[in-house]
């Protein structure tokens, strides 16, 4: 499978995003997802365990 044209990915974690969670632009060269933005700004903390245990 190839990447779709115009697909935007988070520059930190690589997940697909519709627009940058910081600047709201769909063509942001350093797009970030909501989780990465909130963690970088200290608004949220990274989950210590993926399994939740």
């Amino acid at each position, binding site marked *: 499978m190839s990447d779709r044209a115009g697909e935007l990915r988070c520059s930190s974690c690589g997940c697909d995003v519709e627009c*940058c969670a*910081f*600047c*709201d632009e769909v063509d942001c060269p*350093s797009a970030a997802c909501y989780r990465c933005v909130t963690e*970088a*700004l*200290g608004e949220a903390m990274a989950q210590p365990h993926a399994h939740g245990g």
Partner: protein
Amino acid sequence: MVGKLDWLAAGLPTEGTDAARPRAGSMARADVPTCRLDEPLAEVRDRVRTAGWDACVVVNHERVVLGLLRAKELDADPGLRVEQAMRPGPSTFRPFVAIEEMASFMIDHDVPNAPVTTSDGRLVGLLRREDAARAAHQLHAGGHP
């Protein structure tokens, strides 16, 4: 019971060694012009520019942020109403965010201003990039850890 993060997110006063550190909420301009969804864009633009601003936050009657008018939106067709021209549901940031982080993100993303709100969406103020960058620079120059 309200948690610490809720307290900080409401922009309430804090104590301790980091309390005096500049943050998004303390640097945001509370005097930013605001408008309502149904106002004519031409009237809002005149009011905003007369006040020396290039941005306006769209709020409801409880000052909950609904949209943002930056320079580009203010220069849209003057026959539009605010809700037709605004950037709907803009990203907002909490008052406790460190000013260095905000300045860094705003410069990287070329964002001229960013709305700061409480966690329930009420407007605290508009953080301007130049204010954030100046505060971050002064913090760095002052050798604050």
